[in-house]
C-alpha cells in the first residue's frame, strides 16, 4: 500500500505542477489528436472526485461510536482522500485538455480553471500533511471547508459551461427562447429592449425596482414608476424617459446615474425615434422597408463594427503541394488569406505567357475564385478554359485580345466582377454574359461599346454597375514643353537636336529672342545648325492640345582656346572652382549648383582675367561670357563689363564698356550669356573685367548689400 501511495502522491504532484504551468501558458498549447480524446473524458471522470470527496466528508463526520477501530477508520479515510486528490488532479488536467477544443466563455472558463486548480492543490496539501493536520482540528476543518467550497464553485462553473446559465431553475423561470430575427420580431424586441436590458434593467427589475419602475416586462414598463408613464407617444422631448437621459451627468435625476454605463448617442437617438413614431410594442421589423432609417439603425445597433465578414466556401482547400507546383515566376497562385480555401491567380509579363500554365490551373478549378489575366495574349479560344473555373468571382481580362467569345463564360454563375477594359468586346458579345446572376460590376472602358449601348445595358440591368468611360473631360489641355537632347557646350558644327515626348507633336523655334507659336518661328524638321552662342526658344503643338509653354535655352558654342589664361584677381575663397582653368574647360555649371567646380564666384573683388592667344591669333567675331543669375542667392549680372585688348600684354587698351541691365524683381535661377560682338578682331591678348553689383536694388530683401558675380565659361567665337 505504501508503495502505491508513494507512486500516487508523486503522480499527483506531477499533475499539479503541470496544471499550474498550463494555467499560465495554456493558450499557447497545441493539442495532438490522441490527447483530445482524453480531454473528452473529463465529463465522465469529474464525478469521481465529487463523489469521493463527499464520501471523505462523510467518513470524517462519522460519529465516533461507529463500530470500527479508530485506526482502521483513519486509514480508510486516508485512502479515500488519496483517491479524491488523484481523481481531482486528473479531472482538472483532462478538463484543461477539453477546454482547448471548444469555444467556451472565457471569463467563466477562467474561473472554472482557477477554482479547479485551487481545489486540486488543496486536496494535495491536505493529503501530504494529513497526519499533522489531523492534530490541529481548527486548521484541519478550515481547510476541509475551503475544499468543499472550491468543489461547489468549480462544480457550479463547470455545469454552467456545459448546460448554460440557470440550468437547474430553467424549467421554472419563464423565458422565450425564440430566436430574434428581422422577420419575426418587433422593433421593440430588436431595437429598444436590448438597449434597456444593457443600460436600465440592472436597477429597474422585479427585485430592485428603483423609483418603483420595473422595465423588464412590457406591462410594468407601460405602467411606469412613481411618476406614472415614462413617455408621451410621439413626443420624446416631453417624455421623462428621454428627459432624464439628457440631464447633466452630475444631476441627481440623471439616468443612468453617474458611474453606470451611459447611453451612446446612437442609442438615445434610437429611443427618441421609437417614441416619436408612437412607442409601438407590436410593430414588426419586417413591416418596415429595408431603406427605412429605423430599420437601418436597428441593424447597425445589432452588428458589431469589429466583425470582419469573411465569405464561407463549401469547397475544400487545394493541397499545398498542388499550389506550389502551379506557382511560377510568371503565374502566382495563392490563397486569399491565411486558412482560406479560395485561391487567386495572377499572370505577369506578357512575353512570358504560357498557355499551359493557364490550362494547368484546372487542378484547382474548384478553388479558383479570382483570376487576373490583364495584358496577357488571351484570345477568344482560351475563354473556354476560363469558363471551366466554375467558382470564379472576379475576372480581369483587361487589354487581352478577346473580342466576341464571351459566351464561353456563361458557366461562371458565381462571377461578380468582370473587367474587359481595352479589349475589342462589343455589345452583342456582352449580351451573352449580362444575365449572369451574380454579376454586379462590369468594366468596359476603352472598348467598342458606345455610350448609348452602355445606357441601354444600364436600363436593362439596373443592379449592374457598369464603368464605361469615367474621363469625359475632352477639353484640350496644355502640351508639355519640347526639350534639348544634346545638352552642354556645342562643338563647332555640332547641331542642336530638339525632341518632344508626345508622338505626333510639332516643334517651332526661334533664335532671335522672339517667342515662337504655331505660325511664328521655324518648323523644326531636322537638327539645327548654329554658328555661335544663341538663345533658343521653342514650343510644341498638336491637334487637340493647347500649345506648350515656351522652352528657352542658351546654346553655347565652343570657341578658340587661349594659350594662356590668367586670373588677375582672386575669387571668393568659397567659390574658387579650379581657378583660371575653369573658364575654358567647356564645362558648364548648373544654374542652382553654384558650389560646383565649374563656377568662380566674386563679391569683394572684381573679376579680372587675361586670355593670351599668341601672335597667330584667330579672328574673333564675338566673346561670350556665361554667367549665373539667381536673385534668391544674391547672384546678379555684373554691373559693368570692360573689354581690354592689344597685341602685347603690356600694351592693351579699353575696347568696350558694357553696362548690363539688372533684374527688376525676383527671378528663378538660370545661366545667362553676355555676348560682346567684335568686328573680326585678332588681338593676341584680351583682358576682361567684370564688376559685381555694389548695391543690391531696393526691391531686393538684401537691398544695399553687395551682390555676387558668378562666371563659368568665356567663349571666343
Amino acid at each position, binding site marked *: 500500500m505504501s508503495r502505491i501511495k508513494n507512486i500516487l502522491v508523486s503522480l499527483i504532484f506531477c499533475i499539479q505542477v503541470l496544471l499550474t504551468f498550463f494555467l499560465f501558458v495554456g493558450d499557447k498549447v497545441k493539442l495532438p489528436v490522441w490527447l483530445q480524446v482524453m480531454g473528452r473524458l473529463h465529463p465522465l471522470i469529474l464525478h469521481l472526485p465529487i463523489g469521493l470527496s463527499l464520501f471523505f466528508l462523510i467518513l470524517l463526520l462519522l460519529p465516533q461510536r461507529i463500530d470500527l477501530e479508530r485506526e482502521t477508520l483513519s486509514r480508510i479515510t486516508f485512502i479515500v482522500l488519496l483517491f479524491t486528490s488523484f481523481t481531482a488532479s486528473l479531472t482538472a488536467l483532462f478538463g484543461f485538455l477539453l477546454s482547448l477544443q471548444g469555444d467556451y466563455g472565457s471569463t467563466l472558463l477562467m474561473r472554472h480553471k482557477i477554482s479547479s486548480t485551487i481545489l486540486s492543490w488543496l486536496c494535495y496539501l491536505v493529503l501530504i500533511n494529513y497526519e499533522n493536520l489531523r492534530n490541529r482540528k481548527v486548521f484541519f476543518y478550515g481547510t476541509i471547508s475551503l475544499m468543499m467550497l472550491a468543489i461547489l464553485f468549480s462544480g457550479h462553473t463547470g455545469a454552467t459551461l456545459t448546460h448554460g446559465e440557470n440550468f437547474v431553475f430553467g424549467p421554472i423561470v419563464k423565458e422565450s427562447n425564440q430566436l430574434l430575427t428581422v422577420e419575426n420580431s418587433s422593433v421593440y424586441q430588436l431595437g429598444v429592449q436590448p438597449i434597456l436590458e444593457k443600460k436600465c434593467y440592472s436597477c429597474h427589475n422585479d427585485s430592485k425596482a428603483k423609483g418603483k419602475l420595473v422595465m423588464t416586462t412590457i406591462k410594468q414598463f407601460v405602467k411606469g414608476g412613481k411618476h406614472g408613464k415614462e413617455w408621451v407617444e410621439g413626443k420624446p422631448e416631453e417624455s421623462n424617459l428621454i428627459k432624464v437621459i439628457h440631464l447633466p451627468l452630475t444631476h441627481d435625476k440623471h439616468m443612468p446615474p453617474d458611474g453606470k454605463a451611459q447611453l451612446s448617442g446612437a442609442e438615445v437617438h434610437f429611443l427618441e425615434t421609437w417614441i416619436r413614431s408612437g412607442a409601438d410594442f407590436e410593430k414588426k421589423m419586417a413591416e418596415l422597408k429595408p431603406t427605412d432609417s429605423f430599420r437601418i439603425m436597428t441593424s447597425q445597433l445589432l452588428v458589431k463594427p469589429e466583425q470582419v465578414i469573411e465569405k464561407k466556401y463549401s469547397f475544400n482547400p487545394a493541397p499545398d503541394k498542388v499550389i506550389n507546383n502551379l506557382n511560377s515566376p510568371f503565374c502566382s497562385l495563392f490563397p486569399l488569406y491565411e486558412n482560406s480555401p479560395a485561391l487567386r491567380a495572377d499572370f505577369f509579363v506578357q512575353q512570358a505567357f504560357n498557355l499551359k500554365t493557364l490550362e494547368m490551373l484546372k487542378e484547382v478549378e474548384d478553388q479558383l475564385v479570382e483570376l487576373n489575366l490583364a495584358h496577357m495574349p488571351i484570345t477568344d479560344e482560351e475563354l473556354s478554359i476560363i469558363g471551366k473555373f466554375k467558382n470564379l468571382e472576379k475576372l480581369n481580362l483587361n487589354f487581352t485580345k478577346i473580342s466576341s467569345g464571351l459566351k464561353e463564360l456563361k458557366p461562371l454563375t458565381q462571377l461578380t466582377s468582370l*473587367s474587359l477594359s481595352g479589349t475589342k468586346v462589343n455589345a452583342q458579345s456582352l449580351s451573352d454574359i449580362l444575365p449572369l446572376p451574380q454579376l454586379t460590376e462590369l468594366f468596359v472602358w476603352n472598348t467598342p461599346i458606345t455610350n448609348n449601348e452602355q445606357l441601354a445595358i444600364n436600363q436593362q440591368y439596373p443592379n449592374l454597375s457598369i464603368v464605361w468611360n469615367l474621363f469625359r473631360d475632352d477639353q484640350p489641355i496644355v502640351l508639355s514643353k519640347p526639350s534639348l537632347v544634346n545638352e552642354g557646350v556645342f562643338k563647332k558644327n555640332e547641331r542642336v537636336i530638339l525632341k518632344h515626348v508626345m508622338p505626333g507633336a510639332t516643334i517651332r523655334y526661334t533664335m532671335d529672342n522672339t517667342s515662337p507659336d504655331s505660325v511664328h518661328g521655324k518648323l523644326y524638321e531636322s537638327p539645327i545648325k548654329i554658328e555661335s552662342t544663341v538663345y533658343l526658344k521653342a514650343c510644341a503643338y498638336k491637334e487637340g492640345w493647347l500649345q506648350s509653354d515656351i522652352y528657352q535655352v542658351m546654346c553655347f558654342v565652343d570657341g578658340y582656346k587661349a594659350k594662356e589664361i590668367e586670373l588677375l584677381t582672386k575669387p571668393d575663397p568659397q567659390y574658387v572652382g579650379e581657378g583660371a582653368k575653369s573658364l575654358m574647360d567647356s564645362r558648364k555649371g548648373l544654374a542652382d549648383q553654384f558650389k560646383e567646380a565649374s563656377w568662380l564666384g566674386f563679391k569683394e573683388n572684381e573679376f579680372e582675367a587675361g586670355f593670351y592667344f599668341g601672335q597667330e591669333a584667330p579672328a574673333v567675331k564675338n566673346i561670350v561670357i556665361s554667367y549665373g543669375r539667381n536673385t534668391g542667392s544674391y547672384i546678379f549680372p555684373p554691373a559693368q563689363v570692360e573689354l581690354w585688348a592689344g597685341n602685347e600684354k603690356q600694351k592693351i587698351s579699353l575696347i568696350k564698356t558694357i553696362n548690363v541691365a539688372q533684374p527688376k524683381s525676383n527671378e528663378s535661377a538660370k545661366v545667362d550669356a553676355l555676348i560682346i560682338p567684335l568686328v573680326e578682331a585678332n588681338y593676341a591678348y584680351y583682358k576682361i573685367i567684370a564688376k559685381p553689383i555694389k548695391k543690391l536694388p531696393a526691391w531686393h530683401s538684401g537691398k544695399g548689400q553687395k551682390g555676387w558675380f558668378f562666371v563659368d565659361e568665356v567663349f571666343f567665337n
Partner: protein
Amino acid sequence: MGNEFLENRFHVNRRHFLGKLSMGLGSVALGSLLIPDLFKNDENDAAAFSGLSHFAPKAKRIIYLFQNGAPSQLESFDYKPLLNQMAGQDLPESIRNGQRLTGMTSNQAKFPLVGSHFSFKQYGQSGTWVSELFPNMAKIVDEMCVIKSMHTDAINHDPALTFMQTGAQQGNRPSMGAWLSYGLGSENKNLPAFCVLLSRGRGNGQGVYSKLWTNGFLDSIHQGVQFSSSEERILYLQDPKGRDREASRKMLDHLSELNNLNYEEFGDPEIQTRIKQYEMAYRMQTAVPELSDLTKEPDRIIKMYGADCLVPGTYASNCLMARKLSEAGVRFVQLYHQGWDQHGNLVGEMPLQAQDVDRATAGLVMDLKQRGLLDETLVIWGGEFGRTNYCQGDLSKDNYGRDHHPRCYSIWMAGGGVKPGLVYGESDEFGYNIVKDPVHVNDFHATVLHLMGLNHEKLTFKHLGRRYRLTDVAGKVVHGVLA
C-alpha cells in the same frame, strides 16, 4: 508533541528536494512538449510567415502619393472661413494652449491668423469642401475618404516624415512598404514588392533620403527599390553591349554557386538575399521594358494624367508609372513629390505645386477605377503634418506663409476598402485642434495594415530582444473609415 512532528516534516533532505524538483521540472517539460514553438529560436519567426493576409483583405496593393514638405490643409481640404474673418488678429492663447513651436516662429511676437487666399466650394454627392487649387481632385471627391483629423508627434520635417513612413521618429525602423513586403511578399516575382519614385515640384523643397524606404532590421530584400528619374527607369538593368541573356544566365548560375559556398562558410543571411536579388534583377530584365514603355498608352490616358506624364521624372509620369507597377502586382508603390514647404510665398508656390499633382492624381484614381482595380488598390495622398493657421513672418496684403503644425492635418485615401465620399474627423473653427475623431499616425498605420488584411499587432519582427511592429506599442484601427 504535534509541533515536533510538524518540524520533522520540514526537514526535507537534499535528495528528497532534488527528487521533487526533478519531478516538477519533468512535468513542465512534459507540458512544454505540447507547445510546439515554446523554446524555439525566433529566427524562425520570419520563416513561419505564410506571406498571406491574416484575414480577408480589402486592398491588395497600395499607391502612396506622399506630398513631401507638408501641403497646407487650410488651402486644400480643411475650409475655415473664420480665419478669413479674423485675418490679422492674434491666435488666441486658449486655442494654441501651449503647443510647442518650431525654431522658425518661436521668436515671433505675434501670431496673426490668416485665411485661405484660395476659394473653396463643395463638390460631389458627398459635398466635400475642396479649394480651387485642386479642380481635378474635386471631381473625384465621391471616391475619396478625406481624413481631416490626422495628428502626429513630430514638428520638423525629418522626424515627421520618418514617423509617417516607419512608425518611429528615429530612422532605424522598416518603412511601411518594407513591412508589407515582409508580411505579404511580392505578388509578381519579377518585380520588387516595394518601389519608390521621386519627383520635385517648383515650391520650397525638403529632401528625401533612402532611410525613408529602408528595410530597417528586416531582411534587405524588403528594401524599397528607387526608380531613376531618367529615361532609363532602373539604372544598369540592361545587359551591357555584347553580352546576351544566355551569357548572363550562365554568369549568374556560377556566381550563385560561389555565393553559396560563401554562405556555407559564413552563414550570413545577407548572402542569400544577394543571390535572390540577382535572380530578381535577371527576371526584371524581361518585366521592366514592358512596364517602362509608355508609348502604347492611348492619347486619352495621356490627357487624364496630363502631358507631363511622358516627361520622365515628373510627378505625372510617376503616377502613370505607379499605375503600371501596381497593375503588374507591385505591393507598395511609394511616390514622393517634393516642394510643399511653404513657410513664405504660399500664394505664389502652392498653385504651382497643386498644378503638378492635381490632374495626375485624379487621373490615377480614375484610371484605376476604369480598369476595375480601384477596389483592390488603396491610394493615399498626403504629407507629414499640417501647417499653422497663423502667418509665419510678416503678413502682407497678398502673400503669407505657414509654419509646421502637428496637431491636425488632412490626408485622403481612395479605393481599397475605404468608405468613398466620406469626410472623417473635424478640426475646430480655427483649424488648429481636432474636435472629433482624431486619427494618430499609429492609427493610420493600423488601419492601412487592416485594409491589407493584416492585424497590426500580429505583424511583428523580433530584433534586439523584443518584437517590433509598424505601430510599435500603439495604434487602433479606425473602423469609421472602412467601407
